[in-house]
């Protein structure tokens, strides 16, 4: 009996300590990142409290869990969108009912956090994967093997894309992006995200340049680089 009580008490204390450690570890990861949004002074809020409210809260993750009219706007999406809606941060395209978004499977626990962890900024954009702009390969294992090549320096093959700007934050939803070798910053290499975007893409393949239907060009994306090589 004494042993059982001791083990039970130890388990409770271990669980509490683990929870506290995880919370502190998450806080430590957030500090200094773009999600370090706490405010100073009397009446300020800590970075944790900008998303997790310790009091007056109803959601399981201690953030709002209010009833909404739109069933698609659910799970983690509302809390992410509540900042990434063009107010606190740019990026209202993270949930844009008018754009093609990478599918989620909330019933299987796959929400925004299938690619992002707001507490971890090791790989840029709070992504879970170190592969930069080739992050698709983290799940789509064979992407790039028998497809259009990635990691190609376009200067070596003398291609100069017409439109290398894709910036929905500025209202630009069309264009390809070139990256540095690591896929973290802009430069001259093709990566998965040169032609695709998980957010605000066109068609089901999340292409960054959709077909130009008015001009009858189905391969506008290809012609952005391969001008004259691709038939309409």
């Amino acid at each position, binding site marked *: 009996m004494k042993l059982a009580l001791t083990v039970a008490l130890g388990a409770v204390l271990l669980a509490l300590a683990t929870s506290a450690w995880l919370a502190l570890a998450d806080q430590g990861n957030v500090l200094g990142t773009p999600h370090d*949004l706490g*405010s100073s002074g009397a009446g*300020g809020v800590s970075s944790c409290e900008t998303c997790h409210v310790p009091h007056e809260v*109803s959601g399981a993750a201690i953030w*709002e869990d209010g009833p909404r009219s*739109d069933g698609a706007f659910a799970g983690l999406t*509302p809390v992410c969108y*509540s900042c990434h809606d063009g*107010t606190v941060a740019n990026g209202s395209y993270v949930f844009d009912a008018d754009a093609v978004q990478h599918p989620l499977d909330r019933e299987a626990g796959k929400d925004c956090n299938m690619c992002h962890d707001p507490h971890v900024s090791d790989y840029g954009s709070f992504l879970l994967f170190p592969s930069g702009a080739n992050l698709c390969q983290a799940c789509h294992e064979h992407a790039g093997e028998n497809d259009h090549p990635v990691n190609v320096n376009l200067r070596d093959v003398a291609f100069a894309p017409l439109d290398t700007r894709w910036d929905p934050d500025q209202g630009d939803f069309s264009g390809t992006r070139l990256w540095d070798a690591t896929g973290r910053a802009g430069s001259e290499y093709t990566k998965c995200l040169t032609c695709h975007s998980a957010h605000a893409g066109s068609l089901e393949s999340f292409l960054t340049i959709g077909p130009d239907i008015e001009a009858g060009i189905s391969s506008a994306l290809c012609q952005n680089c391969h001008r004259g090589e691709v038939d309409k």
Partner: protein
Amino acid sequence: MFATHEAHLPTAPSVRTRARFPAAGLFVAALLVIAVIIVTIAASPWQSTRERAAAFPASLSWHVTAPAHGYGALTTEYRQASDLVKLDGRFFVLDTGNSRILVQDSHGTLLRAIDGADGGAVLRTPMALATDGVHLYVANTGASQVLALETDGQVTRTLDLSSIAPAARPVRPVGLALAPDGGLLVSDPDNNRVLHLNPDGTLLQVLGSGVRAGGAEGFNAPAGLAVDAAGFTYVVDTLNGRVVKLSPAGSIIQQFGRPGDTAGTLSRPKDVAVDAAGKVYVSDTLLAAVQVFAPNGDYLGFIGRQDPGDAHSRSLFTAPAGLTVVGDELYVVDRFAGVFAFRLSESY
């Protein structure tokens, strides 16, 4: 010896019992404390919400919405609309995702679009609208500008905020209001400040410390702005979970709400409007509601649940943002669900 033994027999168990009871008692007490904490955390917010839930009397007059499709099509379909003003009996709805303003009549019928065609204003993800009763003013967010427009969309003045008020980060205007002196108030969340511009567009005053601050020191990502009839300014202090009231001199003199997600608290406030009686309306994107406060800061109730008396009934809204009060009507621009018009009760 016997007596001593006798004397020890009854005491020994009790000594052992006392030795056990502190450990077991501590464990039971710890469990009770943990249970009380869990029950309190799990139950109190709901109880609190139920206890303090109050429906502010407002009847839904009309609702214009349609799921958005395509880019630039001349329809009444919005793509993440964010604000609205009423001028000359017409509604000017900021269709942010399509970078245009839709002009609609009082029935919601589309009259035309201000989208850069015909020499009109070229907009880039604009986030806020205001009017002085003659002109439209647009926070042209993606271009770091404020534009003054004729109602036909022609630009009469362009204020380049990057040259007016340079800062550590590019100025990204997301809130806009006409100041009592005829100037403009512009919120700049990336620099945690509100800019007060003279009518000629020159910088008059910077409100807020410019760093993320709470209390009386400043703002944390300020967004929507409003000015009441007495000339006081209201600033949605989004990440501090509050709305602050500023004196004409720019000092914080009052606070509405506090962080939370229950009735009367603010989770992600976005915009604010003030009616003629001084009641303060605050949209909350995360709470999916509009909350109402008395001029003294008392919480009056919320708007937006299908059952106005039940805070847990389904919300009419998905992501409410822009607010405008015109007379006894409140207009709510939802980023996804369209424009809602409510008739406000005069008896409250």
